[in-house]
C-alpha cells in the first residue's frame, strides 16, 4: 500500500451529518411513548393487523431526493481511512443536485444526478478512485432513468479538470471497471455501505 497522503484529516461527528427526519408518532392519538411496552393496547385476536399500513400511506409517492442520494454514497468508506465519505465531508448534501435531464421535454422521466466531490487535500491522487466509487455505487443503486454526473468540486483539487475528464469519459470508466485491482479497492470501499 502506498504512503498515506493525508494522515490526519478533519472528521465530522456522525451525529452532525444530515439525516432524514422520520415523522415521529404519526398517530398522536395513541401512545408512541415508553408505555407501549407496559401497555399493549386492548388485545385484538381476530381481524388481525390487516390494515397496518393504510391505503392512503400506500398510495403516497416518495420521489428520490438529494437526501436519498446522500444516504447512498455517504457511507462509502475512504480508500485511505476506515472512515466514511460523509464524515470526511468528501460528499455533502448541498453538493448533490437532481435535475430533469431534458427540461424542455415535459413528462420525460430522465433525471440527472450531479454529485460534487471535495477531496480532503488538493493533491489527492485518490480523487479519481473516490469519484469512480461514487459512480459505481449510484449506477448499482439508481433506476436506469437516472444519468450520473460525478465531478470534483471546482477549486478543490489541483488537477480537477483532468480527473473530471476521466470520470466523464464513458470508455475510460468502462475500462477502469475491467481492472481487477481497481475493482477490488472499490468493492472494499463499498463494504461499509448500509
Amino acid at each position: 500500500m502506498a504512503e498515506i497522503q493525508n494522515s490526519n484529516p478533519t472528521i465530522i461527528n456522525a451525529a452532525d451529518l444530515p439525516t432524514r427526519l422520520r415523522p415521529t408518532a404519526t398517530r398522536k392519538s395513541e401512545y408512541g411513548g415508553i408505555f407501549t411496552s407496559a401497555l399493549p393496547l386492548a388485545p385484538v385476536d381476530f381481524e388481525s393487523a390487516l390494515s397496518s399500513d393504510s391505503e392512503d400511506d400506500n398510495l403516497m409517492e416518495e420521489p428520490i431526493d438529494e437526501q436519498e442520494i446522500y444516504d447512498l454514497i455517504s457511507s462509502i468508506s475512504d480508500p485511505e481511512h476506515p472512515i466514511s465519505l460523509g464524515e470526511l465531508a468528501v460528499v455533502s448534501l448541498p453538493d448533490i443536485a437532481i435535475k430533469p435531464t431534458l427540461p424542455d421535454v415535459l413528462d420525460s422521466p430522465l433525471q440527472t444526478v450531479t454529485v460534487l466531490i471535495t477531496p480532503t487535500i488538493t493533491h489527492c491522487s485518490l480523487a479519481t478512485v473516490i469519484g469512480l466509487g461514487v459512480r459505481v455505487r449510484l449506477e448499482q443503486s439508481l433506476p436506469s432513468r437516472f444519468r450520473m454526473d460525478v465531478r470534483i468540486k471546482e477549486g478543490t483539487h489541483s488537477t480537477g479538470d483532468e480527473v473530471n475528464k476521466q470520470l466523464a469519459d464513458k470508455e475510460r470508466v468502462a475500462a477502469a471497471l475491467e481492472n481487477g485491482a481497481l475493482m477490488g479497492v472499490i468493492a472494499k470501499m463499498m463494504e461499509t455501505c448500509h
Partner: protein
Amino acid sequence: MSALQSFMLVVDHDKEEAKRIAEGIAQDVETKKATLIDTVQSLGEYINDEDPILRGKAISYLTAIIKAFSPKYLSRQQIQVLTTFFCDRIEDGGAVDGLQALQGLDRFNKFLATQVAQAIFSNFQDLQSRSQTQRFHVYQLLNDLMSNHRGAMRDMGEISLLGIVDIMTGEKDPRNLMIVFSILKVVMVEWDISSHVETLFDSVYNYFPITFRPPPNDPYGITAQDLKGRLQECISSTRHFAPHAIPALLDKLDSTSPNVKKDALSTLIACIHSYDPDTVSKYSITIWEVLKFEILNAQEEFLSENSLEALQAITQRLSEGVTEVSQELPLAKFLQPITKECNEQLQEPQNKKAKPAQSILSCVAAASPVSFILVVQTVVAPIFTLYQEADGIVKQRALLETLNVLFEAATTVFGQWTTRGGEAAIENPLLEFKDQFSDLFGQALMGAAKEEVSFRVTALKGFLRLSTLRNFFQENEIGLFVQYLDEILLKEESVGRNDLKKEAIAALAEISKHKPRLIVDITFPAFVATLPEEDEGSDALYLPTLETLAQISVERDIFETLFRRLFSKLSILLQKEQPGSVAYPRAILATLLYVMQQRNMEQDQSVDLYFDRVVVGLCRDVAAAAAGKAKNRILNDPTVLDTLGRLCNLLVRSVSIQKQEKVAENVYSLFSEDFVPIPFTQTTSADQERTIIVSTYLLAGLSKDCSDKIPHTNPDMSALLLDLVHRSVSSTEPATHQAYLRHLALLVNKFLSKQDVTIAEKLFDSLLQSRDTESQSLSPATIRTIFWLSKALILRIAPTTTHIITSLLALLSSQDQQTSATAAQGFSIILGEDDILSATNGATIRLLCRQRLFTTVIPLISSRIREVNIAGTDDSTAAPKSPDHIKPSHLTALAGILSTIPTALVMPELPTLLPLLLQSLDLQTADSVAVRTATLDTLAVIIRDNGVVVIDQCGHVQSLVTRLLKTTATNVGPGAVNSPRLRADALKCLNLLAKYQVPGAAANARVPPGISPLLPVKNQVLRSLRAVLDDPKRDVRKAAVDARAAWLRGVDDAPEEEE
C-alpha cells in the same frame, strides 16, 4: 522357554500379556522365589547383541519388572545399581522408561538424579535425529527430574542449563515443545542464568512467532494458542531477558502480518506485567515511541487496543508504591512525552488523530491516582485555553469530549457516589478546576443555540459524569444541573430527533440512583406542578411529563413519592363531576404500572400499602361505578379498567398467600358487600359485565394454591364454566367478550384440577355441536370461544389434545366461508403470547405443547391442500370440487401457527413446509397480505438461521426466488396487491439469501467454496431488482438497493482465493 524369551516374543503385539509376564517375575522376586540379580543376569546374552531392537526388548523386560514392583520394594543399593545399569545403556529402548520409573521412587536420591541428567546430556547429543516418540520420552524423564529433584538439577548449574538447551535445540514437534518450554521456564526462573542469558533467550525466542497450525482433526489436541501461551511465559519469565526481548518484540511490530503484530504485543504486555518496575521503566519510553505509531495510525482496531493495554500496563507498573507526585518520578518521565504528543494532536481536536490521542490519555490517566494527577496537570489547562480561543462550536465540542474522557478516567480512579469502599488516598486533582468546569459545561449546555444538539448533548454527558463522580460536586452544584435538566424537559421545544431530551431523562434517571433526594426535592415539584387537574381535551401535554417521571422513579424513595402524588391526582379525578377525557386517568395508571414493572415489587416493603390502596380500594370503586354510584364514568371505561387490571395483577402476584386468598374470595364481588357479582346473575347491565375485565386480571395473578377459595368452584367448576361460555358466546362488547374468553381459558388452564379436565373437554365438544345444521356455520363469537378453550387445553396438553386439533382443522373445511375464515385466523391464538395466560402468571404451559401442535397440524394441512390442488386440476367431476376459500384458510392457519413457533422446531419439517409457504406467496389478493407477511417473516428466519443450503436441498431455490421477485413488483395485475411492507419484506428475504449462503454466516462473510446455488438465478434477480429501484416508496427502494448490492457482491461463481 524363559520368562525373558516369552516376554520378548509377545512384547510387540500383546502388551497385556507382556505386562502379565513381568508382573509374575516381579512377584516371584518380591516373594523371594527368584532374585533380582538372577533376573538382571538373565539379560546377559541379549544386552550386548548387535541388533538394537533385541537389546531394546531386553531392557524393556527389566523396566517392565521394575514398574511392577511395589513402590517400597527396591533398596537404595538396588536402585543405585539399576540406575547405573540403565544409564550405561541409556540409548537402548526402554532404558529411559526404566529411569523414569526409578526416579519416582522414594529412595532415589539427589546423587542419582545428577547421574541420570549427566547420562542424558552426554548420550543424547544427537537427540533431534531420533524419532518424535523417543524424544518425547527423554523430555518426559527430564521433566520428571525437574519436578521431583529440582534441587539436584539446579545444583548442576550451567551443566544442566547448557545440557537442556543443547538437546532441545532444533526441536520442532508441538507436543515436545509444550514440555520443552515448561522445562526451560523453570530454568529461567530458578537457575542463575547471568552468564548465559542470550543462549537461553535465543533457545526460545527462535520459535517466535509461532506459526503452527494444527493439522485436520487435531490429532495432538494442541492449539497454536497453547504453544503461544507457553512461549510467552518463557519470554516474560525473567527481567534478564529485557535487553533482548523488548527490542526484538518491538522490531516485530514492523511486520506486515497483523497476527504477528498481535502476538508481539501480547508478549510485550506479558513482559510488562512480569518484569520489575525498574526494568520496565528503562524501556518505557522506547516502547511508547513505537506504540505511538500503532495507535495514532491504527490499521486494525485490535492492534490499537492491545497497544493501549500495553501503555496502561506500563503506567500501572510505574505507579506501584508511588504515593507522592513529583516530576522526578520514572512515571512522570514516561508520561511527559505522551502528554506532549497528545496535547499536540489535540490542538486540532476535530481531526482524525485526536480520537486516538483521547484514548491514550484515557488509558494512562485511568491507570492509577498518581498517573491521573500527572495527566491532569499537563492536559487540562491547555484545553481551557484552546476552548477560549476556539473558532467554532465543532472544535469546542471536540474539546468537551476530551474533557469527558478525562472525567471517565476520574470515575475509574475515584469511583462514583454509589461505589463502596476503596476511596483513593489522594485528592482528586480535578477539584482545582471544579468551578471552571461547572461554568463551562453549564454555559455549553444552557447557553448554546438550541439547534446545536450534539454540542449540548456532549456538555450534558460531561456534567453528568462530574455529578456522579464521588466526592466531587456539592449537593447544590448537582442541584443546579438537575434544574438545567428540568428546564430542558419542561420548557424547551423538541429539536430534531429529540436526542437532548432523551439524554436529559437518562441523566435524571442516573442521578436518581446517586442522589435521590435531589430528584424528589427539585424535579418532582417542578414536574407535578405542570400536571393538569384534568384533561381539557387539547394536546396531551401531560404525557411527556408522566413518561419522564416514570423513567426517573425506579429508586425506592422516589417511587413512594411518585405513588403518593399520582394517586392523589387520581383520587381527585375520580371525585369530579366533569373529569375530562379518560386518557388522563389511564395515563396515570400506566405510569404507575410502568414503574412497578421496572421494580422488584415483591421486595418492596410498602407493597401492602399499594395493595390496599389499589387492589382493595380501587376495585371497590370499580364495583361502585358499575352499580352507577360513582360521580363520573372513568371506572366504567374498558381501557381504564384494562390498565387498572394490569396494575392489580402485578400487585396480587407480589403479595403474600394470605392476601391472595382474600383476593380469590373477592374476585367477583370486588371487595364490595352490596355489589352483585356476575356469575349466575340473570339481569346484568353492560357496566356490570365490564367488571369481568378487572376480575380476570385479579384471577390471573393468583397462585394455583388459591383454587378452592374461588367462588362457585364447589363441588366442581362445571356450572361456572358453562355460565362463562354462555356469556362469552353472547356478549357483544369487544372488551367484555375478550375478558370472558380469557377468564374461561384461565380457569380451564390454571385452576381446573387434572381429574376435572373432562368437564372442559365436554364443553368443547358441545360448542362444536352447536353449529347450524343446515349451513354448517358457527357464529364468530362461538368460534373464538372454541379457540380460547382449545388454547387452554392444548397448552396443558390435555388427554384429548389430538382430537381437539383435528376438530379445529375440520372447521377450516367448512362449506361456510365465514366460518372457515374466522377459524383460520384463530390458529395464531393457540400458541400466541398472551398477557393473561402467561408463564409469569403461572399458567400451565407444558414444554412440548408447541411441538405437539406443530407436528400434528403440518401433515394434516399439507395433505388437505394436496387434495384441494388435485381436485382443482382434475377435470373428471368424480371428486366434488371444494369451495375456493378452503386453500387460503389452511394457509392462513399455517401462517398463524408458524408465527408463534421457534424455527428450530420448523426445520425438520422443512421439506413438507416449503411447498406450502411457496403456495402462500402465490396468493395475491388484498386479504392475503397478512398471510404473506407472516410467510415472509418465517422465510427470513429460516434463511438467516440455516442459509440457502436447506432450501437448495429441497430443490426450491428457483421457485422461491421467482415468487419473491414477483412479490417485489408494484403492478401485478387486477385484484392483486403487494403492499409496500410486503415488497420490502420480500426484498429482505432476497438480501438474506445472498448474505447467508453458508448457514449462520455473518454479513460480508466469505463466499463459500464451490459454486453458489444462487448463481443460476443471479442475472434474473439483478434484472428484476433494477426495476424495483424505481419503486415509489423509499423504504422499498432502500431494501432493493441493499438486496441488489448483496447479490452483486456476494453471489459469485468462483470461490475467492485463499489468502
